């Protein structure tokens, strides 16, 4: 068989731009003339952003108090030393007194913070049943296996099942304020609504269908989790905020990313306090239920106000400032190198 250079064989590929890789293309080059102005612009923009973010974060005020009772100071120390090993631990309440010398601008947000609590532990995080929490009656009576050992309690299925639900945070706080030292304490209204994601308590979490108009009957045949003092349909007296859609419950079920985390407890924005917390003496009454000392954790209470960029976190501002200045410095370095080697390049080009 003779091989001919001119005859088009059956296996010869097509001579199109695509198959022969001759497609029209753009050849960008990361040269100094493009990157230098880019670096300077980016540096300036980042510096501006960084300054804005930093000042915005600096303007936010935060007030926090560790009420675990470790250091034997404050009234919560007595609660701390009581028999915390029992579950549920004995009821105890303590108070935190503080004064504000000037207005704490609002709206003020109240958080509770836990440290050393690994809500992101894998075994803990999978111990829940989202089907049950979405209100499916079949799942209500047959909780998922991942919930074990909080799946069945005394022969009855647990609703809501799982370790995440079982470890629900159950400290409660009330805030009292008095303007003058001899005036009585007035309760500050805490707005406990809309503290969870809207999609969570409207779509993801639903109560099982009511039986004869009663939520308690809907949960008939189930047991509360072992560590809960009350069953799930009695979490709140407000019928719109009880059962699986209880806001505190939903907030707790959103597992936190890191072992030190905060969760929203309430907003202070009603009535006289909509502009913020005025100056005066304050008292927070804490129902100390949650046993964190067993694992060396801490409980904190945090008052904070929020800006468009969230809470007090200087990181973003500082990071932008640093990166912006780095960009500008590197821009100058590259400019110097470019100018110096530009002369050398010109000489080279002339020699060629």
């Amino acid at each position, binding site marked *: 068989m003779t091989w001919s250079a001119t005859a088009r064989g059956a296996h010869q590929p097509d001579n199109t731009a695509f198959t022969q890789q001759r497609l029209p293309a*753009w050849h960008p080059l*990361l040269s100094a003339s493009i990157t230098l102005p880019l670096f300077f612009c980016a540096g300036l923009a980042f510096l501006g*952003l960084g300054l804005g973010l930093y000042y915005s974060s600096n303007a936010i005020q935060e007030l926090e108090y560790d009420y675990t009772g470790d250091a034997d100071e404050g009234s919560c120390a007595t609660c701390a030393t009581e028999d915390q090993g029992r579950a549920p631990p004995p009821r105890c309440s303590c108070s935190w007194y503080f004064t504000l010398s000037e207005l704490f601008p609002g709206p003020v947000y109240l958080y509770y913070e836990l440290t050393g609590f690994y809500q992101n532990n894998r075994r803990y995080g999978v111990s829940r049943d989202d089907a049950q929490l979405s209100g499916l009656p079949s799942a209500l009576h047959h909780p998922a296996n991942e919930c074990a050992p909080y799946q069945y309690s005394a022969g009855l299925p647990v609703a809501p099942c799982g370790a995440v639900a079982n470890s629900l945070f159950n400290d409660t706080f009330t805030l009292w304020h008095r303007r003058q030292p001899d005036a009585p304490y007035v309760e500050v209204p805490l707005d406990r609504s809309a503290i969870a994601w809207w999609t969570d308590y409207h779509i993801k979490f639903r109560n099982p269908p009511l039986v004869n108009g009663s939520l308690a009957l809907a949960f008939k045949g189930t047991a509360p989790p072992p560590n809960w003092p009350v069953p799930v349909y009695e979490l709140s007296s407000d019928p719109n905020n009880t059962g699986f859609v209880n806001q505190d419950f939903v907030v707790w079920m959103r597992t936190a990313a890191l072992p030190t985390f905060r969760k929203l407890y309430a907003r202070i924005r009603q009535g006289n306090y909509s502009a913020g917390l005025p100056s005066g003496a304050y008292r927070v009454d804490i129902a100390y239920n949650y046993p964190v000392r067993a694992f060396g954790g801490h409980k904190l209470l945090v008052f904070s106000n*929020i800006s468009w*960029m969230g*809470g007090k976190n200087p*990181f973003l501002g500082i*990071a932008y400032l640093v*990166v912006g200045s780095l960009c500008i410095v590197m821009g100058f370095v590259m400019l110097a190198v470019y100018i110096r080697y530009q002369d050398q390049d010109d000489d080279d080009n002339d020699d060629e």
Partner: protein
Amino acid sequence: ELLEVLSFDSVRRRMSVIVRSTAGEIYLFCKGADSSIFPRVIEGKVDQIRSRVERNAVEGLRTLCVAYKRLIPEEYEGVCGLLQAAKVALQDREKKLAEAYEQIEKDLILLGATAVEDRLQEKAADTIEALQKAGIKVWVLTGDKMETAAATCYACRLFRRGTQLLELTTKRIEEQSLHDVLFELSKTVLRCSGSLTRDHFSGLSTDMHDYGLIIDGAALSLIMKPREDGSSANYRELFLDICRNCSAVLCCRMAPLQKAQIVKLIKFSKEHPITLAIGDGANDVSMILEAHVGIGVIGKEGRQAARNSDYAIPKFKHLKKMLLVHGHFYYIRISELVQYFFYKNVCFIFPQFLYQFFCGFSQQTLYDTAYLTLYNISFTSLPILLYSLMEQHVGVDVLKRDPSLYRDIAKNALLRWRVFIYWTFLGVFDALVFFFGAYFMFENTTVTSNGQMFGNWTFGTLVFTVMVFTVTLKLALDTHYWTWINHFVIWGSLLFYVVFSLLWGGIIWPFLSYQRMYYVFIHMLSCGPAWLGILLLITVSLLPDILKKVLCRQLWPTATERTQARNQCLSVEQPTVFMLSQTSSGLSF
């Protein structure tokens, strides 16, 4: 009438036929290489023909000598018997045949010599020059005589006018011992090694110290012969040392097995170079099989070489485009593919690893399982796939015009430890930026404007989003050849990621047993700091690479980068003067 054929073999380098003429006389005609015919000749104008043959060889013609002898019928009977016995021998048939041939082909009368002009293939000289400029060492291994081969090498510009030829031939070895010859040669080449720019195993030298070595098969077998005193290793080392400093080596009078032997010798020498063997005849098959890459030229001498090769090309000149263009492109593409794959997976897994320190080492995944599964399949696979199919960092004609660009990738330059460590360092740096950037942003406070807190899935999704965008933009920075396909896959992959995330988290999928990702992505994008954080983290991750690229291009540009920067002006390729056609078996590395 043809009676017998004593077939050709490459060891004795001749063949004979026994014929009966119309008058009934029996003749034996023998033709072969002059070195194998002349010793058997007893009559004829030997000296005249010998000088004529030498003159022809110097001119580059391939010579053959022809001789004959008359056989009387009894002699013929004896010859027949010998051949028959040898042909049907059950053991050592080759040896018995060789002995038989040896006995039959003697006492010949010299008839004359033939000379054939074996023309060089078109553009062979251009190809060899391009290969040498590219830093590839070209060796020619041929079965021809020394004079013929040397003339061919001058013709194809393997030896230039300024090349000083060193001979390691049988003639010189007869005069001095092998040891002395080797020593002398090595002193000659090594004397000038300091002045050459040290570039191991490259044929570069623009100054006059340009050496070419000629060695023939007998000398090579002397060097390779195993000796009792162990000095053969020294001879081999000495020989390789000499070869290293020569810009071209010509091995003539090589038997096919010797060609393979020399390839093996070089393959296992100190630097372990990559060898390529190209040939067109059946005598090249062993060397093609031995070398790392064997190329067969589909030529007039049959398709044995092509059948045994890794690649078959129709003409020798195609080797130039094959190595300098296609080879260069494939190397760039493959090395980027390998490095990029390791890099993007380091970026992917290292944040997961870091997260373990913050989740109590409980093997909690940072990202949702859908992201874990689809990262390598859907979000980051197409861009690099299309890059490794389409990338052309410089144009095809530039590569053909400037073979010295090939030196930028010599010695596996892009897959060395140093480059790999740079990529790994970049991956680790990027992973640290992603993870700790998100960590410090999320630490403890809310980032939404309504005070609500994010959970661990939002944290993971933020890290993942930054990561997907960074690794894709890194590839975009590395791409030099943007066709519509590149735009489509790169921006398309990013778009696909966003759309997938929106869909995955936007619907309560009934088949899922968990709904942890519901609304996570959308909620993350609804807060300002998340956008600012993503922008910042992507910038910080890409910054070192951009800096390195720009500074290295400015301060230490490689030849390729210089060519990229120069204005691309179209130039017509110089037509070469050679229109001859022939193949020369060559080995290059």
